[in-house]
């Protein structure tokens, strides 16, 4: 049996929901709102890797009792465990390209988008719920997660953090625009998990970063977004939203690279 612990269809959760739908895999949906601190989190049994999850509030796949974390590695896992309807190109060069995209998206795009998203939506939501309270932080044992949540609870994103995040978001759109000049899809002549991984972060950008993600500045990216949104699997994944505003669902993501 497959279970997916996930939140709204945005960023990390969206990536895994689309992949499961594209592969036609049945799964139990376990909806988990990481910004809801009213009760105990209902998490599955976690192993060493899952307990040290750098994606912090990202999705967790449970397959026959084994917890699998890190949204992109969940996609690779699904392709390894269920080879039908492959989402990787399947040749060494194409697979390499997919993994280079994944590294860039995970290391540069993810912290950039998450920081801007938290500043725009999570900070006001927490304030409205009067959750800017130190007791909330006691829930986080992992020091990196504490730091990330403290920033959101106290709205202490510096100008430099925000500028760096905008730079990473602009760089992402620029790279996608450049790749789409060569092909309709990012890593191969067909739609692959590189497109899914990138779409999961870029789908929210026309609203979150309209200054870089718009028809004039990034026409190919906008058309690519439409091509992906038209896919039945993607429509089904987006329809799993409970709030009706999935592109406003943000929790602190992975940290910005400290060095190197």
């Amino acid at each position, binding site marked *: 049996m497959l279970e997916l612990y996930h939140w709204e269809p945005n960023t990390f959760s969206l990536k895994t929901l689309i992949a499961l739908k594209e592969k036609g895999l049945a799964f139990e949906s376990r909806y988990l709102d990481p910004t809801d601190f009213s009760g105990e989190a209902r998490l599955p049994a976690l192993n060493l890797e899952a307990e040290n999850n750098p994606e912090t509030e990202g999705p967790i796949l449970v397959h026959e009792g*084994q917890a699998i974390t890190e949204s992109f590695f969940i996609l690779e*896992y699904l392709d390894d465990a269920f080879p039908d309807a492959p989402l990787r190109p399947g040749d*060494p060069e194409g697979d390499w390209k997919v993994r280079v995209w994944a590294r860039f998206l*995970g290391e540069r795009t993810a912290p950039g988008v998450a920081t801007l998203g938290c500043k725009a939506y999570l900070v006001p939501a927490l304030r409205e719920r009067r959750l800017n309270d130190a007791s909330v932080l006691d829930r986080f044992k992992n020091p990196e997660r504490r730091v990330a949540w403290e920033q959101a609870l106290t709205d202490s994103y510096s100008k430099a953090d925000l500028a760096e995040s905008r730079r990473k978001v602009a760089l992402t759109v620029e790279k996608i625009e450049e790749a789409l000049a060569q092909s309709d899809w990012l890593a191969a002549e067909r739609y692959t998990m590189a497109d899914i991984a990138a779409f999961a972060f870029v789908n929210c950008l026309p609203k979150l970063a309209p200054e870089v993600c718009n028809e004039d500045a990034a026409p190919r990216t906008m058309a690519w977004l439409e091509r992906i949104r038209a896919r039945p699997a993607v429509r089904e994944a987006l329809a799993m939203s409970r709030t009706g505003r999935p592109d406003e669902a943000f929790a602190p993501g992975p940290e910005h690279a*400290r*060095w*190197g």
Partner: protein
Amino acid sequence: MLTLYHWEPNANSGKPILTLEEKGVEFESRYIDLLNFDQHSPDYLKINPNGTIPAMVHDGRMLYESTAMMEYVDEAFDGPPLRPTDPVERWRMRWWMKFLDQFYSPSASMIGWNAFIGPSVRDRDPEELKRKIDAIPLPERRVVWTKAIYGTFSEAELAESARRVRYGAKLMEEQLTRHAWLAGETFSLADINAMNLVYFMPANPLGAVSAEKTPRTMEWLYKMAERPATRRAWARGKTMTTERLKHLVRPSQQSA
């Protein structure tokens, strides 16, 4: 035709070297001296415009990003498989490689650059150093090199890196207490990746990896160092790298 542009068998350069040696794939080796900034020279930028090493050219195709390159090698060439067939072990292999690449290694590297590499480069002619830094193509790499060369890490940054190195060493010890290898019961690219960081940890001043603190990790290091591929890979080093491997011998086998 396969050419690898690399520095020492260490960190990112060592990952494809050891992978190719384990796989038994012959390649043409081009040594790029990182401390002489050869990776930013016009000749090298013609091969890899990003100015990063390692880079691999296979049948006219240029590949970069050392961890993605390792999986490429395993996929593209015949030889012993270096990725487990079990999907869970394969996922664990990738999890560990990311943990090494983005958490454990950069922290150890900050401490290493601050203590050894920065000071050794710093006494060169300041004008020459400035020219070398200006020639770095990626802005992010320029920031990294500037910090490394002038040693402008704050006390807080260094303390956080030390915490992370100790945490990384502890987590790896826990994993190797449960399993023979990082991904589980199968030797994999995760061990190759980790070797390129952990081989020098016993010499690191933090003392996070030692016979007393991390016996399982030391045992794993001895096993890694005994592998013929590791010996061939480290024999390619031109600096202290090669020397450090010689210390990775079980105490019972050390000659007087």
